[in-house]
């Protein structure tokens, strides 16, 4: 394999890890409450803008931007849960879909109104230079984003499977009435799930902002990426989201390199539809 192809694949894996991170937030909420957050991509967009604001106001990089983005988005997640989700969960499907869709519009165009439609970027050297490992050139910003995203996604998986908080959340997902009888508050657990899910998007946004273009409508594209990842990995499954995220990152990079940058979204969307049609339960999901 030529070096450039390896380079493209490594770049895809690093980006894919970030996809996996924000998609695991979507899959968590979806698996636990059977709610699809259509504003999920716009949460990531907000994380990017938090990182941008932190840089312009304080001149700080992702070291400060990322924790702040997590904090801001986790708070937003809790507000959204108590303000809207808790009520519409009991409502009809139309209300559930419309509700998060309206939220997406509200967030996207508030940012649009405030910052304008211009493409913003953080300075290229905000994380440092480029590593050269045996002929492979890897930007430090992409490496940092990929590595942190991978670790946090794995951490999230451990949190859900190995801790008592994770077991409680699983119990609520399984049967919230039964969980309540065992002394677990479904409301608290679901609010925590929203905080975690939104926090993950904030982190992913702040990480991706170091090398990605920042624009209000980026959430639409990233939201569809999250849908693809979750439907590929099977809903509710964080390991599934991880594998699917990495896979999509690689597919996107490869198709961008082999067919042309204009067609890489076309490839990803077609893949998504193909999966919805032929295997709606995902790669790892059960029927």
């Amino acid at each position, binding site marked *: 394999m030529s070096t450039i192809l390896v380079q493209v694949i490594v770049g895809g894996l690093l980006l894919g890890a970030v996809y996996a991170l924000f998609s695991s937030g979507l899959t968590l909420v979806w698996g636990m409450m059977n709610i699809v957050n259509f504003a999920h991509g716009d949460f990531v967009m907000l994380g990017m803008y938090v990182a941008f604001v932190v840089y312009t106001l304080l001149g700080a990089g992702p070291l400060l931007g990322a924790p702040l983005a997590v904090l801001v988005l986790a708070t937003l997640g809790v507000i959204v849960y108590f303000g809207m989700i808790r009520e519409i969960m009991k409502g009809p499907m139309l209300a559930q879909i*419309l509700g998060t869709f309206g939220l997406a519009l509200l967030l996207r165009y508030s940012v649009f109104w405030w910052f304008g439609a211009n493409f913003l970027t953080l300075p290229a050297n905000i994380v440092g230079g480029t590593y050269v490992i045996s002929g492979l050139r890897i930007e430090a910003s992409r490496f940092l984003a990929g590595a942190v995203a991978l670790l946090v996604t794995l951490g999230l998986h451990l949190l859900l499977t190995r801790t008592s908080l994770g077991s409680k959340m699983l119990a609520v997902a399984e049967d919230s009435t039964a969980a309540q009888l065992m002394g677990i508050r479904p409301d608290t657990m679901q609010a925590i799930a929203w905080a975690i899910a939104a926090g993950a998007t904030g982190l992913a946004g702040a990480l991706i902002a170091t090398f990605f273009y920042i624009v209000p409508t980026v959430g639409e594209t990233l939201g569809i990426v999250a849908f693809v990842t979750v439907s590929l990995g099977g809903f509710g499954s964080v390991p599934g989201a991880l594998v699917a995220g990495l896979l999509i990152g690689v597919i996107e990079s490869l198709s961008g390199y082999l067919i042309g940058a204009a067609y890489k979204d076309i490839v990803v969307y077609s893949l998504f539809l193909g999966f919805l049609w032929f295997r709606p339960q995902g790669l790892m999901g059960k029927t």
Partner: protein
Amino acid sequence: MRRLLWPSVVLALVIAYPLWFSTPFQQRLGALVLLYAIAASAWNIVGGYAGQVSVGHVVFFGCGAYAAMGAYTHFGLSPLVGIPAGIVVSVAISAVIGVPTLRLSGHYFSMATIAVAELCRLVVTNTGYLGGGVGLSGPSVPRNVFDLSFISALPYYYLFLAVLCITLGITWWMANSRMGFYLRAIRDSERAARSLGAPASRTKLYAFMLSAGLTSVAGALYSMMFGFVDPESGLGILISVKMLIMAALGGAGLLFGPLVGAAILVPLEEISNNLLGGKGAGLTFVVYGAIIVLIVRFQPGGILTLINRIWSISDKAAKAAVAEGTRHAP
């Protein structure tokens, strides 16, 4: 006959509207309200009555618009000729999308339709025959009346009104046919409807196809009024969103819901654009988003449901008062 009283009063007022409000802005506004009401009513068939939230209706809207403009650009025909072509293509596409995705549960259907819409927009943007990113234009100077290219909005107003009446007529007929009862049963509980023998998949697909065809007519009319179509105005996801919000605000699954929604939102958007200029574009959608969140949170049935409830409460109060009166009567 009492049931027809209010609709006919409203119809008379709508017909008379351009006579009272005769400035170009007001007539254009009226025409736009009717146009969006057509699109939202078409969406209402599948989104409201069947409860399948399609966010990809812009695909059919774009089909109609591109067919109408394509008929002129590529064949030198009147854009009107494009309408049947657009309907045929839309219905075909809706069948291709609908057969696999309507099996899926609600969320999946919505996500799939978003992806289809974005896919179409990207493909059309990269297709030279359809004008790429620039799009297609209609006749700049009308050759005859069939080019439907008027300076005044008045002819469009009455044309759109006629199409809206047909659309609402079809919707009413569908809602009161066997199909309408099936659709409402499916919306309330698909499993229960199936177990009682309602052909759920087939009925949903028919509703989707009907809705797609009507949406494409709205798209064609839109492109004729504006004289062009490009990927953003013909296939942008925001057009789907507008249909969805108008129907939901007025009352999804109610005959006149989309009309009420359009009559509130279109003037709001046009007036705010006029007042705020370029800055208003973003703000309009902030308001849209806020309105959706508020309706969903506090009045998921839409405005008409609220009005109906208030009416029935006052009705009950009146009846109770009458009952009270008779009881005390000697």
